């Protein structure tokens, strides 16, 4: 008797108001505990709540100290620099590549396959590729030697572990042109070919066609792809850790080093830095959503 009542009660619960929350629970609980929990735990420590080191007072000191610290600001500009430059260069190349891929040519199918290769090669592998290609004794340096441009490895310009983060940017570029091209090309496929025909009838050159017809129509796609890439570069850790210098390096690397510092009092600084990284990414996400909403309102957004 009680059993059937219980069963009925459960059924009522399951078909009633609780159905949706109950079904969503597994993912939501894990996301809240792990993802939000992780972020909040970091946030608390960044405000100086860190019982393990005897710190229990909430304070903004760590943030204030950071944003007035020259080393931190230098790292921030370095991070922005190595994330923005490859994003811009990569996006321009991607737009050109997607535009070129729309017409038939010999080897198009081949190129359409291989341009996606870097997308599925792990970052760690891409880093090693850049090392063997561009280190002082790498393959490029050896080719330069045979061309008579340099006489020893030390003549080769330092592209890795350098002040400008060139090695880091090369890895980003190699990996990400594939991604931006994929997105931009898929947007391009959705553009009505009659626009191109019309432009051609009026005598538009390829350049004008790209500049005044395709780019404006693809702009939301281009923007959102490059924002994702930018956010990703901004937060990436392994590439600058391996290919960068100790100083200046990117914020994620500095945050990690502060976390791993033997002085446990450095911990709140690490967390304050990672919170700042998160805030900047959240800002990028905000723009991404805004652009996403704009796309839905675009005349070409829904066309196939």
């Amino acid at each position, binding site marked *: 008797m009680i059993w059937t009542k219980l069963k009925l009660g459960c059924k009522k619960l399951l078909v009633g108001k609780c159905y949706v929350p109950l079904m969503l629970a597994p993912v939501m609980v894990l996301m809240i505990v792990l993802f939000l929990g992780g972020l909040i735990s*970091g946030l608390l420590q960044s405000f100086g709540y860190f019982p393990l080191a005897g710190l229990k007072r909430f304070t903004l000191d760590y943030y204030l100290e950071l944003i007035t610290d020259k080393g931190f600001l230098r790292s921030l500009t370095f991070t922005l620099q190595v994330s923005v430059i490859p994003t811009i260069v990569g996006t321009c190349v991607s737009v050109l590549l997607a535009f070129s891929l729309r017409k038939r040519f010999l080897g198009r199918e081949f190129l359409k396959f291989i341009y996606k290769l870097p997308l*599925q090669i792990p970052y760690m*592998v891409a880093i090693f590729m850049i090392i063997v290609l561009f280190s002082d004794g790498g393959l490029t340096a050896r080719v330069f030697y045979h061309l008579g441009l340099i006489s020893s490895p030390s003549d080769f310009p330092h592209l890795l572990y350098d002040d400008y983060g060139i090695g880091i940017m090369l890895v980003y570029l190699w990996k990400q042109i594939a991604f931006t091209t994929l997105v931009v090309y898929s947007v391009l496929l959705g553009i009505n070919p009659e626009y191109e025909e019309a432009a051609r009838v009026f005598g538009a050159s390829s350049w004008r066609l790209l500049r005044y017809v395709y780019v404006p129509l693809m702009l939301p796609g281009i923007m959102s792809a490059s924002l994702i890439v930018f956010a990703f570069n901004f937060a990436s850790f392994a590439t600058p850790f391996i290919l960068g210098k100790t100083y200046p390096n990117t914020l994620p690397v500095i945050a990690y080093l502060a*976390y791993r510092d033997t002085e446990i009092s450095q911990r709140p600084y690490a967390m304050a830095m990672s919170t700042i990284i998160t805030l900047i990414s959240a800002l990028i*996400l905000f723009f991404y959503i805004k652009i996403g909403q704009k796309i839905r309102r675009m005349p070409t957004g829904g066309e196939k």
Partner: protein
Amino acid sequence: MDGLFSVVRRKNFVLFLQKVFLGAMALWVLVPFIPLFLWSFTQSWFWPNLLPNIWGIRAWRYSFAPYSKVLEAIWTTILLSLFVTFLNIIICLLPAKVLGQKKFRGKEFIRLFLLSPLIVPPIAVALGILSIFIRLGLSNTFIGVAIAHLIPTMPYMTMMLSAVFENFDIDFEEQARSLGAGPIKTFFYVTLPVIMPGIIAGSLFTFLVSFNEFVFTFLVGGGKVITLSVLLFNFMGGEAGYDFPITAALAIIMSIPGIIFLIVTERAIKEEFFTLGFK
């Protein structure tokens, strides 16, 4: 007539430029693979030779030797990725069903929340989680790393599964139920066969993301859980003068799942799929 010629010539020039550009792009993608393969088959390779002085399979022999760190890392990585995929299927199935089939308030917000790990910096989440996991005794353990891997993988599984549920006709289930099938029977004989492609696609994504994951493994695993990406990182980020041939072999091994994935999905998943995010 003169004007026409110049138009034709200009057009040819543009076509030529386009060919150069496309050729350069192909080289840009493919050339970095060459030294990788050469190094993995190198015994010794001195400056300034363009090809190895002495070829050899030492690196490959080492990679698959019973005592090798590489082989151990291969097993750890495969086991971890399979376990994470399995956990994902169990965890995401019901939520994906609701997200795909039901309309409710706050759905867009929940969808966005579930996708947010894709864009929130992993380093920030991982550092925060590490503090919690240390207290719970989950840091430096296989289980701890597997749980941490749920963060970057759940978005893929939930979205792939909810996409199949969206196209799944809810009537099928109701018909089965009205003919007397219980909820479990209905699930295994009606729902599961229909959503199988989604489970497979989601599993492929999850496996690959977990296989290549670095930051969570590195921080939560704390040097105790050595996957392929952690081993590769240790080689490159650690001491100077590491063994290039072995690193190259390791890098090639690590690329295999991704390349298989690309070949498999090339037919199944078209470019259009990637615009789904905007909808």
